[in-house]
């Protein structure tokens, strides 16, 4: 029910902040969603969409954190293995 998936904003229509809509690409499936709650979003941004509304913009730097965490874990593991 709280399923929300990331998609890429292809185009934006409407000027009024409450009725601004976007065409959003979900890996080839294109759907309309409201941008009423994400006034900062521009074409090319990734947004998280739930029941026809973008709930937020995906932060591309933060999106790398999981992989940075894993990399750090790996390096720490190697250090521990090397220490006597």
């Amino acid at each position, binding site marked *: *029910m*709280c*399923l*929300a*998936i*990331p998609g*890429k904003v292809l185009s934006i229509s409407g000027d009024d902040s*409450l009725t601004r809509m976007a065409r959003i690409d*979900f*890996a080839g499936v294109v759907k309309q969603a*409201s941008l*009423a*709650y*994400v*006034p900062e979003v521009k074409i090319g941004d*990734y947004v*998280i969409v*739930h*029941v*026809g*509304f973008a*709930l*937020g913009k*995906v*932060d*591309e730097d*933060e*999106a790398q*954190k*999981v*992989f940075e*965490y*894993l990399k750090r*874990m*790996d390096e720490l*593991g190697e250090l521990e293995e090397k220490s006597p």
Partner: protein
Amino acid sequence: MKFLDEYRDGELAQQLAREIHRVTTKPWTLMEVCGGQTHAIVKFGIDELLPEKITLIHGPGCPVCVTPLEIIDQALEIAAQPDVIFASFGDMLRVPGSTTDLLSVKARGGDVRIVYSPLDAVKLAEQNPAKEIVFFGVGFETTAPATAMAIYQAAQKKLANFSMLISHVLVPPAIEALMSSPNCRVQAFLAAGHVCAVMGYEEYFPLVEKYRVPIVVTGFEPLDILQGVLMTVRQLESGRAEVENQYSRAVRREGNLPAQELIKKVFRIVPRKWRGVGEIPQSGLGLGGEYAAFDAAKRFGLADRRVEESSECRSGLVLQGQIKPHECAAFGGKCTPEHPLGATMVSSEGACAAYYRYRRQPVKI
């Protein structure tokens, strides 16, 4: 798909799982709050990657499952009326009420329609001025911005033929209710990422302080959930209880402020009964003030009622994490997704349906 596939990497998942094994020294019981997380955990077998010492309890975070029987019965009553178009998310159609379900009402001629967004129901109201359009407004904080906008737009457009039957529920009061229960076994929570995308996570700091329980805001993909578990176990093992955010690509501490503003404008906080759990104070959203006229229960003059649940269904205990789905005698025999006795078997996010679909437990016939 970008921002999905990379979080399903099997090798990296194993790496996280190994780290969880390495840091776990004591038995810990965690609850994932959201049904979407339960679904992912069972689908990808994430719980099977974890050390035996870690128990995951599946929380009450499935709005379909916790919508009370009384409101399902109200929906059935409205949907059966002539001149009504009853619009709903698809997953509510097979939820059993006292005697029937919405799909059966539709089969008997009721005009029940599945919509993708609450705004589709507003459109139906514009296109069918001679009909009463009623939208079934069910969901957590994640869905509230959408239902709030539908009401707001209907008010702006002065659509007198639009109303909403509301069963909106809120997550933090449910966590509080679980933690204050004497039977509570939960030692830490994976908080629901998309609820927090809307509401932020300020609300969790007082809970962490009061109950000394770690809360980690967590996403929905396998790497998210495993990292959430790892962050939680690290806190538990070192005796910390903090709010942490694993799902920072989608969740900011303050949440989505424009969405919160409209929710506050349209809704007010009300007590709400949760199916299988009981009434939780201040745990729901209802319509008040200038938007009260859009309340379908009032418009159709439906009185509050009390209905008894099937005694065979133990979904209440499943929702509170006191039993696992396959420990119910009806599971897989009398109760299946085709013939559900309770809501946890209906929604794909319900713990019983997820176990039935993905978990090859010996099934009693």
